[in-house]
C-alpha cells in the first residue's frame, strides 16, 4: 500500500455553515482496493480529531502503520479485496487538506484567518470529493469518535449518498463535559507565548508546549481509569524512589509527556483549535429543528451504532439517544455496547467483537 499523499483540488468553492465560502479547497485522501465497475463497493472512512487519511498505510511523518490497519486491508473486517475504501483528511486539518496552515490568497498561511468550520462542512468537502471521484452512492460510511459524527452528518444531510452508516464510540452532540475538555486544550495552546495569536508558522519557536498539554489532557479522556491503572499503576519511571522534584517520577507522567511531545511533531496547533471547535459546535438535533429524529426522517440507510462500556467520553447513553431517534424515524438500526477495557480508544485497539460486528454489518 502506497504512502504517497494524493491530493485533489475541488472544482468549486465550498459553502460553509458559518457563512461565506472557502475557495480553492484541496483534499488529501487515500484509497485502498479497487472501485467496482458499477461503483457500488465504495466505503468512506472518516477519521477522528487527530487522525488522518493514512488508514492502512504507513504514516508519512511518523513512519508508523495506519491508525486502523488492524481493521482495513485484504481479508480484514473492512476487506479491501471486496471494498474500495476512501479516507480523506478533513478540512481544517494539517495532513494535506486545506487548513489554517495552508496558504491564503495573499500567499501567507491562513492562521486564524481560516474560517471556523463545522462537522457538516467537513462532510460537504467529502461529498465534493466523492463527486469528483465519480462515487454516486456509498456502500457505507464508517467512522469512530469524530469520524462517527461525520458519518451521522452525512446520513442526515446527504441521505441518498450512503446505504449503510456505521458510527462507533460517538455522539449526536458534544456535551458540556466534552466542550469543557476541549476548551482546556485550546486554552493551553493559546496560553503558550509561542502561539502568538496563531501567527507562528514562520517563527523559530512553535507552540509545542501548549499543544502537548492539550494532547496530554485529551489523551486522559481517551483512556479508562482501569486502563491507566492496569498499564501504569503507581509505578515509578526508571528510578527506585521518588525524586522529591518535578521530573516525571511516575510512569504515567512519562507516558503522557511522550504522547504530548510526539503529537506536536505531526499536528498543527491551529488545526487543533479549529477541529475541536467544529466538534463542540456539533449538534445534529439543533441542525434539524431541535428534534434528533427529524435528522433521519429522509434516510433509507441501515444504521449500526457501537459503544464501549469503559468509554466515559462518549458513553453508551449517547449511542442509546441516537438509537431511540433512529427507531422513532423508523430506520433499521443495530446497536451493541461492547465490553472492552481501554476506554474511548477501544475503537482503535484490539477488540475482536468489534471486528465481527463491523464485518457482519458491512457484509450482511
Amino acid at each position, binding site marked *: 500500500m502506497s504512502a504517497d499523499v494524493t491530493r485533489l483540488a475541488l472544482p468549486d468553492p465550498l459553502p460553509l455553515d458559518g457563512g461565506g465560502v472557502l475557495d480553492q479547497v484541496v483534499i488529501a485522501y487515500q484509497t485502498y482496493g479497487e472501485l467496482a465497475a458499477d461503483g457500488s463497493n465504495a466505503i468512506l472512512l472518516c477519521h477522528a480529531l487527530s487522525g488522518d487519511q493514512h488508514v492502512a498505510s504507513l504514516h508519512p511523518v511518523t513512519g508508523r502503520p495506519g491508525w486502523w490497519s488492524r481493521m482495513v486491508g485484504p481479508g480484514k473486517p473492512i476487506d479491501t479485496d471486496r471494498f474500495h475504501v476512501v479516507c480523506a483528511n478533513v478540512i481544517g486539518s494539517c495532513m494535506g487538506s486545506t487548513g489554517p496552515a495552508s496558504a491564503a490568497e495573499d500567499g501567507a498561511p491562513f492562521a486564524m484567518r481560516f474560517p471556523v468550520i463545522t462537522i457538516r462542512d467537513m462532510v460537504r468537502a467529502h461529498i465534493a470529493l466523492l463527486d469528483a471521484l465519480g462515487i454516486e452512492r456509498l456502500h457505507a460510511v464508517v467512522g469512530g469518535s469524530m469520524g462517527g459524527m461525520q458519518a451521522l452528518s452525512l446520513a442526515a444531510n446527504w441521505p441518498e449518498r450512503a446505504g449503510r452508516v456505521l458510527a462507533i464510540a460517538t455522539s449526536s452532540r458534544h456535551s458540556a463535559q466534552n466542550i469543557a475538555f476541549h476548551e482546556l486544550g485550546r486554552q493551553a495552546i493559546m496560553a503558550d507565548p509561542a502561539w502568538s495569536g496563531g501567527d507562528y508558522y514562520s517563527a523559530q519557536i512553535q507552540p509545542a508546549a501548549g499543544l502537548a498539554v492539550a494532547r496530554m489532557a485529551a489523551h486522559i479522556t481517551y483512556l479508562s481509569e482501569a486502563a491507566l491503572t492496569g498499564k501504569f499503576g503507581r509505578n515509578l519511571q526508571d528510578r527506585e524512589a521518588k525524586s522529591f522534584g518535578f521530573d516525571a517520577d511516575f510512569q504515567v507522567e512519562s507516558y503522557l509527556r511522550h504522547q504530548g511531545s510526539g503529537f506536536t511533531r505531526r499536528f498543527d496547533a491551529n488545526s487543533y483549535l479549529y477541529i475541536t471547535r467544529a466538534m463542540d459546535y456539533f449538534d445534529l438535533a439543533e441542525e434539524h429543528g431541535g428534534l434528533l429524529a427529524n435528522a433521519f426522517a429522509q434516510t433509507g440507510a441501515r444504521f449500526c451504532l457501537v459503544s464501549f462500556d469503559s468509554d466515559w467520553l462518549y458513553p453508551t447513553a449517547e449511542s442509546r439517544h441516537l438509537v431511540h431517534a433512529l427507531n422513532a424515524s423508523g430506520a*433499521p438500526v443495530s446497536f451493541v455496547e461492547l465490553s472492552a477495557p481501554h476506554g474511548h480508544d477501544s475503537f482503535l485497539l484490539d477488540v475482536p467483537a468489534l471486528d465481527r*460486528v463491523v464485518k457482519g454489518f458491512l457484509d450482511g
Partner: protein
Amino acid sequence: MADLRPDLAVIADHIRPHSRVLDIGCGDGALLAALRDGKQVDARGMEIDGGCVERCVAQGLSVVQGDAGRDLAEYPGASFDYAVLSQTLQTASRPDRMLTELLRVGRRAFVSFPNFAYWRMRSSLLLAGRMPVTRALPVSWYETQNIHHMTVKDFEQLASDLDVRLERRWFFTRERPIRPAAANWRAESALYELQRG
C-alpha cells in the same frame, strides 16, 4: 425453518411476507434470520445480552441491545405489524405492562411462555414439595430469570382483563404440537397470537 424451536416455527409460518416484525428478546436471532431469508420480512430485534446482539449483528441482522421493560417505550405506536415475545414474558418485572406495550408497538403480537400448570410441574410441587426443574424450565429457583410464573388460565385471564383478543393459540409438549383439550394440564408451553380488543 426446520431448525427453529417449535413455537418459533409456528410464528414464522404465520407471519405475512414483507411485514414489519420486532422480536423482543430475540436471542441469537434464529427467528429474525428465518423471517428475513424466508419471507422478506423487515425483521428487527431487541436483546438484553450483548453477546447475543453481537452474534446477531455479525449475521447482518438489525438488533438493538436494550431492556424491553425500559426501551420499548421509545418506539412509536403501531410501528410494527407484529411484535414477538417468545419465552420471555415470565421474565418481565411487570408482564401486564409488557403485554400492553407489545400491542402498542405491534398491531398484532405473538407471545409464548412455559405453562406452570403443566402436570409435571404440579406433580413436582404436590408430591416432591420442590420447585420444579424440567426440560422447559431447567434452572433452579434461585438462579432462574423467570420471576413471574404463569399458567395457561392465568394468561388468558390477564388477556381478558387487558381487553386483548386471543386470535389463535397453539400448545406444545416435548417440543411437539398437541391438541388444545385440557391444555392447562397437558401443555408444557403455550403460544398465542394476540390483537388489541
